[in-house]
């Protein structure tokens, strides 16, 4: 076969309308050269081998509902047992939170996701976000703890599942982010003591794995505290996660700060702006804007890293999955359970990633509009 290589310059999307367009697109994108064609064929072959069995297992032969695990056991290996997920989803999502009160963590999840979504809208980027977050987080706290008329008190040892993951992420980032900005500013402050402390903290935290921070927070921290002071496990884990996120975010923010030309500082100084006016009105708005893509990247990583709290005995989304598998009737359906957890993680991370991409495009467009 001699496949003539056509000089197709504008590959995708620009082919003229007509019957030949799809063919041309195929040739330009999938069969442009011999290695390209081979890779395309190899990929197709793999898909053909892997996809049908997976579709069979996950959909066609799957058991969606079942009164107990017997039906699933009978169909062992043939199809997925989504009945398990259907049976356990409340526990996976909300942990050991009192069953009849599950609407509370559910609403809390919606509030948290809503807060994040609102923060993503550029036209809401102003000071009003601060009271909005304050009100939202307060509402989440009241919902989760209760202890007010109509909402029985639920101690936080019973919080778990998706809401715990979202809470750790949200409070982690909401506190770590301002802290990170202070650390980044401190690192650039030129004041030896402050600079030294900031550099020391950042490098120390970045130099150890998150797991060891969590262990330290859960095992070592109580040793240093006076006898009667006890901080609960959730708070200790949250503190560790905040410190961890702050150190990484600080470096991202520092990168943004470094990109601001000296002339901007000098112009602000020359107008008589104080340090904080200069920082908040001139430097940070520009620096954070540059940092958005790496910031979102770090956010995504942090969201997934919260799953590590399972090693110190907190029941985040991944831990509740693990625990739900320990029930004798349902052991052995780990694939389904972990696929479900992965799907939940994926939905969140994919949304964040797509958001970050669209934001980048939007900002690039806005920047282009601000130039001639």
């Amino acid at each position, binding site marked *: 076969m001699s496949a003539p290589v056509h000089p197709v310059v504008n590959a995708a999307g620009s082919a003229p309308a007509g019957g030949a367009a799809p063919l041309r697109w195929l040739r330009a994108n999938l069969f442009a050269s011999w290695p390209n064609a081979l890779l395309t064929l190899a990929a197709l072959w793999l898909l053909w081998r892997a996809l049908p069995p997976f579709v069979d297992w996950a959909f066609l032969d799957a058991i969606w509902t079942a009164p107990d695990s017997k039906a699933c056991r009978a169909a062992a290996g043939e199809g997925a047992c989504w009945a398990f997920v259907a049976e356990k989803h409340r526990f996976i999502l909300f942990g050991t939170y009192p069953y009849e009160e599950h609407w509370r963590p559910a609403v809390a999840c919606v509030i948290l996701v809503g807060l994040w979504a609102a923060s993503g809208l550029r036209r809401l980027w102003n000071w009003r976000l601060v009271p909005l977050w304050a009100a939202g987080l307060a509402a989440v706290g009241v919902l989760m703890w209760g202890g007010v008329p109509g909402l029985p008190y639920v101690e936080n040892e019973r919080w778990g599942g998706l809401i715990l993951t979202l809470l750790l992420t949200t409070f982690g980032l909401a506190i770590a982010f301002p802290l990170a900005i202070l650390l980044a500013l401190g690192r650039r402050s030129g004041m030896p003591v402050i600079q030294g402390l900031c550099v020391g903290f950042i490098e120390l935290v970045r130099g150890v794995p998150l797991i060891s921070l969590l262990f330290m927070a859960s095992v070592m921290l109580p040793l240093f505290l006076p006898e009667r002071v006890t901080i609960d496990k959730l708070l200790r884990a949250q503190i560790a996660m905040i410190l961890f996120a702050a150190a990484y975010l600080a470096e991202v923010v520092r990168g943004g700060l470094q990109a601001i*030309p000296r*002339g*901007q500082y*000098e*112009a*602000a*100084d*020359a*107008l*008589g*702006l*104080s*340090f904080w*006016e200069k920082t908040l*009105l*001139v430097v940070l*708005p*520009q620096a954070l*804007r540059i940092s958005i893509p790496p910031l979102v990247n770090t956010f995504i990583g942090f969201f997934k890293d919260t799953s590590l709290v399972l090693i110190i005995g907190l029941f985040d989304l991944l831990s509740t999955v693990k625990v739900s598998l320990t029930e004798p009737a349902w052991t052995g359906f780990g694939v389904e359970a972990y696929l479900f957890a992965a799907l939940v993680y994926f939905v969140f991370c994919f949304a964040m990633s797509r958001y970050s991409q669209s934001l980048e495009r939007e900002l690039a467009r806005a*920047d282009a*509009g*601000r*130039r*001639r």
Partner: protein
Amino acid sequence: MSARPMIELRKVSKRFGDFQALKAIDLEVAPGEKIVVCGPSGSGKSTMIRIVNGLERHDSGTVVVDGIELRDDLREIEAIRAEVGMVFQSFNLFPHLTVLQNLTLAPLWVRKMPRRQAEALAMELLERVKIPEQAGKYPGQLSGGQQQRVAIARALAMRPKAMLFDEPTSALDPEMIKEVLDVMVELAREGMTMVVVTHEMGFARTVADRVVFMDQGEIVEAAPPQEFFGAPQTDRARLFLSQILGH
């Protein structure tokens, strides 16, 4: 008018590491006086005017601006900066803010001016620098000449008692130099105290009360423009003038 100088430098020295950038500079600028500073590149012109508003700290000597001596006290420095406007070679407008926001930022925050008043003042100043129609645009959408006029208006929005210019036209395409100089000439006519680092000798002739010639960190000559251009006293000044006027 008080007899007190607006700006007073006495025996001001500045080193960068081993390099002596300013060597015991003396300079007095009376209220309303216009000074043009010239001299070869690296002679310390920028360093001198940056010391006046504390962007650079001097090592020794005294700097007094509007009766306040510049010390290490940050609040005092900020107070002086609010009274002394500065225009940079590279404009240094805030790119994330519109032209109007660039002009109102410092009046709102430093002067605590009500927003409506700050915006009225900003529009009035944009009229003066002849670009009121650009108020809603971002700096990146303006030409260099327009940006520099916005920068001048931004400094004027603080109602400063003196204005410092550090080579305000050096970064501009030739066809835009005049529009900026026109604004500066008008400002001079209105009686502003000005210290202008520039090599625009036409501007110096029209506007300057005195031309200060610097070389190697020293003020070598300071004389009214006719004297300085007509009969420079030193070889260094003659050489410099022949170089910039020669071609």
